[in-house]
């Protein structure tokens, strides 16, 4: 048990640093994914034919290829591309930090999934509300800010909450490309001390705590986003 203590002889501190890195990446990736997803959903719904087809290719390909393969491809391709662009412009090569690369890669993957979630949520808004906003002469930007985004939120939150939980778990995959997050920290601690079972169980407890805590928050947020709407139980 003293192996898990947070101070120097124990490895608890290492695990917590790993957890912090995991959460940083998950938060960053989810935010980037939301941005891509909102833009993608609007592109799919209101864009021209070429935009729509390109977005369809993006969401289909990203959702059909394993995350691990995508992470490897984007990790190498992304850093390679940036360095080649920098070299072409006459700058020095830079080392891209694992954090930025991880956020970019996972955000790109999350973007494909959240595009579909947000697209579905926008389609679920009663058509009359959007027509009413148009009838008031709202500009597209104002309509997005005041009507579309708040009205789609209750429909999008269950799907987006799922995506957040997937994001926290997908950070574990970055261990394979050598980014120091909870799973890799666990592996190192376990490898040094040979106490494999204890450390993997501890990491599992940490991940589970994140999930359960998130579920609690999500319940609150969902209740807030659905305020003023009839409850699901009564609707049945």
């Amino acid at each position, binding site marked *: 048990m003293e192996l898990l203590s947070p101070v120097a002889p124990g490895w608890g501190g290492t695990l917590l640093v790993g957890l912090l890195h995991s959460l940083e990446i998950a938060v960053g990736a989810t935010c980037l994914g939301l941005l891509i997803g909102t833009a993608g959903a609007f592109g799919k719904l209101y864009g021209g034919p070429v935009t729509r087809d390109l977005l369809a290719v993006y969401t289909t390909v990203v959702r*059909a290829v394993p995350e691990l393969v995508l992470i490897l*491809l984007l990790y190498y391709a992304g850093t390679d591309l940036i360095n080649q662009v920098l070299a072409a412009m006459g700058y020095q090569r830079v080392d891209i930090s694992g954090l930025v690369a991880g956020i970019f890669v996972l955000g790109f993957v999350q973007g494909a999934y959240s595009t579909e979630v947000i697209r579905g949520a926008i389609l679920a808004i009663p058509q009359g509300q959007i027509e009413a906003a148009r009838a008031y002469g709202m500009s597209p930007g104002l309509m997005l800010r005041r009507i579309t985004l708040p009205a789609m939120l209750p429909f999008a939150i269950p799907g987006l909450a799922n995506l957040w939980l997937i994001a926290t778990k997908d*950070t574990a995959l970055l261990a394979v490309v050598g980014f120091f997050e909870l*799973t890799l920290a666990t592996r190192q601690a376990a490898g040094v001390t040979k106490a494999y079972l204890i450390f*993997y169980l501890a990491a599992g407890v940490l*991940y589970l705590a994140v*999930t359960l805590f998130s579920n609690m928050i999500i319940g609150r947020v969902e209740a807030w986003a659905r305020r003023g709407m009839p409850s699901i139980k009564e609707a049945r």
Partner: protein
Amino acid sequence: MSTEATAINMAARASLWLKPHRIVLILIALALVICAIVFMRWDWLPQYWEMGLMGLWRALWILAVTCALGFALAVPLGLAQAGGPIWFSAPAKVFCTIIRGTPLLLQLWLLYYGLGSIFPQYPWIRESWLWPYLRQAWPYAVVALTFSFAGYEGEVMRGAFAGVPRGQLEAARAFGMSRWKIFRRIWLPQAFYRALPTLTGETVLQLKSTPLVATISVIDIFAVSSKVRQDTYLTYEPLLLLALIYMTITGILVFVFSRIEARIPVKIG
């Protein structure tokens, strides 16, 4: 419908789909593929394709076995949560929560490195007939992936079992069916039809988690591509081919499931 009408119908559908901008996009995509074939290095293919086929076969085998076993485990898990007494439903719920709340990679490493380091300490395990299997990596991969599929699908089956209208079950009881017969003839088939659309998604997700087994030294198609990368120092070619292979398998899976779904009577509920 006559064959002529079918042909006209298909031509109309094709012209609807093949708009001018699509033709341009397809030509661009073709040009990219041809560039990839011409300008990238593919001379390693003849040397490795046999190994790749073996890896592909192993990945598909793991996918099929874990989906079948996982579904068999998901049925009791879902049933216990939907209608079981608390001492069945609570453990099932805890199991599903734990599986769904932790990353599969961690579960895999917990089983392989964690349990794998515990087993050799007990002489009676080392002397048992199981030991030759427990020394290899694939049983751990199969167990971890099976549990993962069962955890996710158990939750789906819970909803599916709960979603079967009560009237159906009451009617079955009024016919004098035994409980086992009600389950076999009414409850399970109707729940299965309800779960089928999500089953497609879960199977594709399961396919996308199979490359994780490469991290515990099971040689699947992903491990083969890693080996190619190590041997030839090529980064993109093996990964791109791998992505293409997974996309093809996903396409085939979705097609097969949509055919199965089309055969099932739609009028339920």
